[in-house]
């Protein structure tokens, strides 16, 4: 059984944009005539044609090749628009590739949406059959699993009531219950698990893990890196339609996080002539202010398990006594998380104009998932009134990489400390 469950080679998908997808026959006719005119008039330069063609095309996936081994739980990560959904659609045969090939070994079931085929006028029972056969089961298979499905969904006596009378939660539970009882060799899941309440999500996660542990191959697309880390053994990263990386889940998620840092705002570079003055005295010349991972470069995205170094680099000119550098970290709602400052040590500054670094480390397991901004301030203890403030100098994101079930909502709370939990039997008797 050394054959890969999924073998993808040179896969590409091209979409045409613009009016080449004419909506009416009239539009198409006009476009067709325009095309004819281009063919017959030799005065049009060839380069003109080529550029027009390129503008109208968009490769959602290009030259993607990889294998998924049997029994693997394989994660697919990437930003929005990287091509993840397109890849799933191609494997699910919802659409066909432009180039390349996909070889599948085993029955495939795709869960791209919960409750596909549900119709509000049909009863729960009828919808179970509809959804089940749509997902690839035969009537007989739905029959065999019917009772389990109903129990998993816990919709009780509502089975023979029209679905339009169901609450949205019931609809989701029913849809997922059907999907959870698929028994394909290859299961493809696209971020559909982010619905329903926490209790139900735990059930779904459990079911998914059971499926995976039975030796079935699972392809899992998600933005929830915690879930990906928990469930997947290997993963791949898609960037702009290309396969950027493939490897163990840890490697890929780290690479993804590092890459995500290439956004605006994680580093602020000051203009070369800028100086910070107090009372007309040039105190220092700022160079840059950045959020960095420890012992590595500036990045814009951190895991909850990573310490964040806020590093201010400048050239000290005339360090007045009591010059302080401070930071204030705020979340997107503007709530001040904390601030901190330090007096610049003049002994470190050398006489030559060598740049100096002043940095602080925000401990890991402090900030919760979210986007944060940092204000940078410089002032002088001996000159109370003067102050330099660069508001929202930096922006960085914190991502929950340790996972909290499969919910995409993070653990609530502005901070996310890791607390020590202890359990023991009580000593002594009554």
């Amino acid at each position, binding site marked *: 059984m050394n054959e890969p469950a999924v073998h993808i080679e040179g896969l590409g998908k091209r979409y045409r944009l613009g009016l080449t997808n004419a909506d009416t026959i009239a539009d198409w006719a006009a476009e067709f005539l325009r095309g004819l005119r281009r063919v017959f008039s030799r005065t049009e330069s060839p380069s003109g044609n080529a550029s027009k063609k390129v503008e109208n095309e968009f490769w959602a996936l290009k030259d993607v090749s990889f294998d998924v081994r049997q029994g693997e739980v394989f994660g697919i990560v990437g930003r929005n628009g990287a091509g993840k959904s397109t890849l799933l659609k191609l494997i699910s045969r919802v659409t*066909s590739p432009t180039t390349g090939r996909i070889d599948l070994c085993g029955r495939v079931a795709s869960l791209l949406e919960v409750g596909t085929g549900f119709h509000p*006028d049909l009863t729960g029972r009828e919808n179970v059959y509809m959804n089940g056969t749509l997902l690839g089961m035969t*009537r007989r298979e739905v029959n*065999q699993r019917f009772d389990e499905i109903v129990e998993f969904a816990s919709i009780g006596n509502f089975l023979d009531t029209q679905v339009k009378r169901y609450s949205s939660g019931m609809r989701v539970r029913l849809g997922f219950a059907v999907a959870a009882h698929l028994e394909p060799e290859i299961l493809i899941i696209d971020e559909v698990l982010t619905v329903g309440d926490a209790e139900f999500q735990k059930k779904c996660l459990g079911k998914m893990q059971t499926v995976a542990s039975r030796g079935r191959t699972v392809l899992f697309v998600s933005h929830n890196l915690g879930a990906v880390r928990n469930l997947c053994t290997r993963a791949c990263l898609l960037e702009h339609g290309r396969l950027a990386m493939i490897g163990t889940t840890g490697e890929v998620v780290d690479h993804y996080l590092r890459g995500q840092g290439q956004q605006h705002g994680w580093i602020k570079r000051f203009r070369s002539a800028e100086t910070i003055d107090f009372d007309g005295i040039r105190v220092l010349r700022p160079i840059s202010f950045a959020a960095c991972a420890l012992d590595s470069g500036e990045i814009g995205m951190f895991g909850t398990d990573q310490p964040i170094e806020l590093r201010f680099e400048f050239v000290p000119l005339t360090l007045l006594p009591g010059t302080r550098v401070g930071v204030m970290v705020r979340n997107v709602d503007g709530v001040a998380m904390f601030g901190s400052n330090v007096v610049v040590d003049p002994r470190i500054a050398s006489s030559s104009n060598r740049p100096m670094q002043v940095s602080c480390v925000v401990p890991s397991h402090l900030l919760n998932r979210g986007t944060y901004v940092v204000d940078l301030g410089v002032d002088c203890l001996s000159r109370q009134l003067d102050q330099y403030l660069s508001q929202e100098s930096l922006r960085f994101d914190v991502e929950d990489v340790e996972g909290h079930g499969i919910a995409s909502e993070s653990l609530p709370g502005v901070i996310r400390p890791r607390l020590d939990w202890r359990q023991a039997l009580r000593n002594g008797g009554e």
Partner: protein
Amino acid sequence: MSGESIPPRDLGVAIERTTILPVSGWSLPDLRELWRYRDLLFLLTSRNIAIIYRQSILGIGWAVFRPLVTTIIFAIVFGRFAGFADKSLSVPYPIFVYAALVIWNLFATSLSNASESVVAQANLLTKTYFPRLLLPVSAVGVATVDFAVQFLLLFGLMWYYGVAPTVLLLVMPIFFLATTIAALSLGVWLTALNVRFRDVKHVVPFLIQTLFYLTPVIYPVSFVPERLRWLLCLNPMFSIVEAFRWSMLATPPPDWSLFVVSSLITCVVLVGGLIFFRRTESTFADII
């Protein structure tokens, strides 16, 4: 096979292998695959039927109400006012019209349903895979329910007008089948085109109306000049309507040579349509 345990993988059971490649070439749809999805076809059809008739008072009664009223109006307007009746017809004009209307409605409803079948179920297309051909076929299936009800009423009318069924009744299923194939042959083209060009949706009612007047429903074929009859066999229903009427009411049979030509044309259109559909179906989810 219920409960949490799974049977060990039986090595004798064939592993299903699939290869997905870019669309190329021209070929007919895979019939084996269609057979494998027969459960889904059945469910799609019964689901659509249930949706139409659920929560309606007359329910299936609507299937009868409309053609009955239409027949009455035709009998008055064309039968009396225009004088189509009593023109050496072997049966009373109302039943003459109604019998043709039954088979014509099958064609019209099938065609109309089929031509919008793909766009109407767009939400299924973008999320799951199944042979898209199931959609127009299921649409034709939905129309046969109406036909069945109207057909029963035809027997009622036959009893009322004292027209006895003959042994020719046994060939009726052939014409029933011919009608569904005729509807499907056009429907497959139209539904595939409709995905790309939404104005097809507006063409279909007009097409059906035009074909109606070019079909001997409200008049016998004898009204059509001889030299034009060859032209009219481009209309797939031209001979079928007459043939159906002949099998039910023993009215004069159609010109069989015209029937054969018409059928051959329909077959060519059908095959072409299936190939075209197959070629374009993988792009439906992209354009829809």
